[in-house]
């Protein structure tokens, strides 16, 4: 039996990190703003406090309460409505990347045979499932799950400890190594298999050029600066690649048990007071730092047009929100992004009418989803596509179930306003729908189709 040797633990990185949703904004820190006066920062904070109701803010306790209470009630009503409008928009902002990732994975699974062939297993799942008896197979899959989950727990705790003790260099090195492997090695394998499937010849110099450019731009986008959409695209691609690796190397029953176990782990890690992911989020919030960009997909929109500040007399509600928006963006992006944006926003351009300020303001907030969530959603849908007897209905049912789970999770996020695990609800729905569609709905629909009946 050939086992696939993972030469670095870092590939576990993307899957054990941040499997939770959190809001995009960190609390504002006046020191980040050069050129912003303290009063503006105070008003912006006040606006931020008022806008705590939005689905994207972290717990209220961290916001300092300052400023005029007069506008509070007027703000509240507007915010409540904005909450729901924002809520729907952010659900869609997450639906799109999750859907894209799943489409990439399903398309690859259905066309490239490599990812459905069995070529050995990861060392994290040493027990084989080739046994004859059902009980033995179940036992092996449970043992595989225990090993895999322990590895993930150990990695996560290690990462949190490193973060707590400020070993940033080590963490960055680890993340860079894992993204290097994903962007170069796995992409090379993927490209090779796709070319093989479609029987397209490509010479090595071209291949080198393509992979080099893809990987180098990816490293820059993910770890340094880059256009938001390109960064999002790269994060989706590496999640898809990681999910494909899991789909290929996890044996069938182990995959399902691992999916179930990891959603339980996610629930505990994010919600329990001493859970590693919760500690990671809280430590990041205390220090007012963003979580590493390589581990989180951020849906916040880019502020592409610089705007000069209108004079104080004309400053209305929207202006304050705009300030808050600017603060928020600068804080929740990594510092490098903030630099580029601050330079953009400071450049003198003609002022725009207030209405467009309001429109632009609406796009300020985003919501973040951990890459581990992308990966495990795609693993579920990909496994459904790979193993459901060629049936597309199962894949579609799992897809809809996951989206609805994500929607419900975001609803809970709007209610509770703190980091929440994104896996449990979606994976539960996904698993329930996979097994029931594959075993119950498929025969029914096949029988209906054979009699050309429509319901």
């Amino acid at each position: 039996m050939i086992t696939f040797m993972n030469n670095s633990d870092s590939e576990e990185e993307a899957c054990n990190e941040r499997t939770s949703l959190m809001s995009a904004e960190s609390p504002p820190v006046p020191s980040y703003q050069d050129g912003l006066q303290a009063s503006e920062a105070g008003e912006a904070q006040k606006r931020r406090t008022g806008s705590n109701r939005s689905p994207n803010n972290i717990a209220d306790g961290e916001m300092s309460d300052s400023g005029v209470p007069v506008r509070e009630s007027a703000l509240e009503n507007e915010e409540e409505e904005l909450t729901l409008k924002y809520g729907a928009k952010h659900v869609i902002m997450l639906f799109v990347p999750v859907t894209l990732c799943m489409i990439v994975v399903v398309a690859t699974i259905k066309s490239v045979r490599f990812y459905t062939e069995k070529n050995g297993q990861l060392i994290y799942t040493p027990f084989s499932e080739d046994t004859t008896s059902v009980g033995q197979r179940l036992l092996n899959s449970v043992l595989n799950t225990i090993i895999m989950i322990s590895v993930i727990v150990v990695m996560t705790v290690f990462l949190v400890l490193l973060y707590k003790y400020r070993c940033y260099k080590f963490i960055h090195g680890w993340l860079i190594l894992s993204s290097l492997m994903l962007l170069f090695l796995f992409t090379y394998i993927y490209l090779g298999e796709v070319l093989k499937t479609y029987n397209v010849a490509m010479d090595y110099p071209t291949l080198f050029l393509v992979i080099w450019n893809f990987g180098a731009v990816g490293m820059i986008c993910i770890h340094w600066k880059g256009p938001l959409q390109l960064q999002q695209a790269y994060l989706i691609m590496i999640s898809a690649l990681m999910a494909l690796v899991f789909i290929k190397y996890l044996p069938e029953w182990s995959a399902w048990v691992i999916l179930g176990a990891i959603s339980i782990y996610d629930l505990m890690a994010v919600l329990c007071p001493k859970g590693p992911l919760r500690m990671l989020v809280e430590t990041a919030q205390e220090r007012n730092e963003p979580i590493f960009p390589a581990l989180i997909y951020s849906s916040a929109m880019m502020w592409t047009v610089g705007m000069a500040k209108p004079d104080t007399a004309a400053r209305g509600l929207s202006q304050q929100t705009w300030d808050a928006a600017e603060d928020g963006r600068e804080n929740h992006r990594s510092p490098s992004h903030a630099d580029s944006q601050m330079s953009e926003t400071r450049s003198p351009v003609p002022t725009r009418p207030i209405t467009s300020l309001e429109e632009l303001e609406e796009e300020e907030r985003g919501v973040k989803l951990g890459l581990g969530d992308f990966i495990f959603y795609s693993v579920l849908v990909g496994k459904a596509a790979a193993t459901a007897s060629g049936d597309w209905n199962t894949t579609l049912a799992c897809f809809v179930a996951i989206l609805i789970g994500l929607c419900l999770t975001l609803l809970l996020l709007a209610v509770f306003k703190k980091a929440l695990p994104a896996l449990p609800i979606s994976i539960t729905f996904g698993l329930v729908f996979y097994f029931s569609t594959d075993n119950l709905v498929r025969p029914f629909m096949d029988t209906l189709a054979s009699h050309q009946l429509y319901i």
Partner: protein
Amino acid sequence: MTLAVFFGCTFIAFGPALGLFVFTIARDPLRIIILIAGAFFWLVSLLLSSLIWFIAVKASDPRDEPLQKGLLIFGVMFSVLLQEAFRFLYYKLLRKAIEGLVALSEDGCSPISIQQMAYVAGVGFGLMSGAFSMINLLADTLGPGTVGIHGDSQLYFLTSAFMTMVLIFLHTFWGILFFHGCEHRRWWEITAVVVMHLAVSGSVCGVDPAPSRDPEVLRDVPVPSHPCPSLHPGGKSGHHLLCNIFSPELGDPGQSLWGRHWVHLRQPANWCGLL
């Protein structure tokens, strides 16, 4: 079957729905969520009705053909009733959501009206229903085969595509009517929708499967008795299944009913060697 069949059937079945989606639903995030939730509700209703049908089939004698047919018709009717029940539940949920939206909004009116929600919910139900009916067929149009080789209708894909399109529209209209009936407490509208749905599903019941669909006839066809290697570049396991179905060694005739057996009918025995 050619790509032309695939694209043709896809656009016949889903083209109008895609147009509706792109021009009326895609812009508003709230509508997209209502659409997906509607699809989810339809899916849950299908799940429950399949469960009932499955239990009934397992509890009954698989060799008794009229009984199986009767159970199928019962399954269809039960599924229709359950779908309408879930439509009603969805209406209740959306009503609550509208009250919430109204309470949250500044000017006392919700960003979306119940009529728009009814339309979107109908499209959601329709899209999911159409997708479940049509997607497997579309996947099979990409594979090799000849339609109607055993004397069945050559227009199977075309009729299925049209029927799916019709069904998507019908679900949309039924959604609007149903919600309107619930809003204004006009029970005759709701009953009319249910009766229409039963009539549409039931009317297609009248289409008798051609005699060659009979599993006994399948077994008489001379076939290679070994699983054929698949030459399809994708190597999908489905094609192994296609060949296996023809094998007379398959003891249980019930097995041949499952797994896209209508396509197998259209493939002559000697295709197995070519596959």
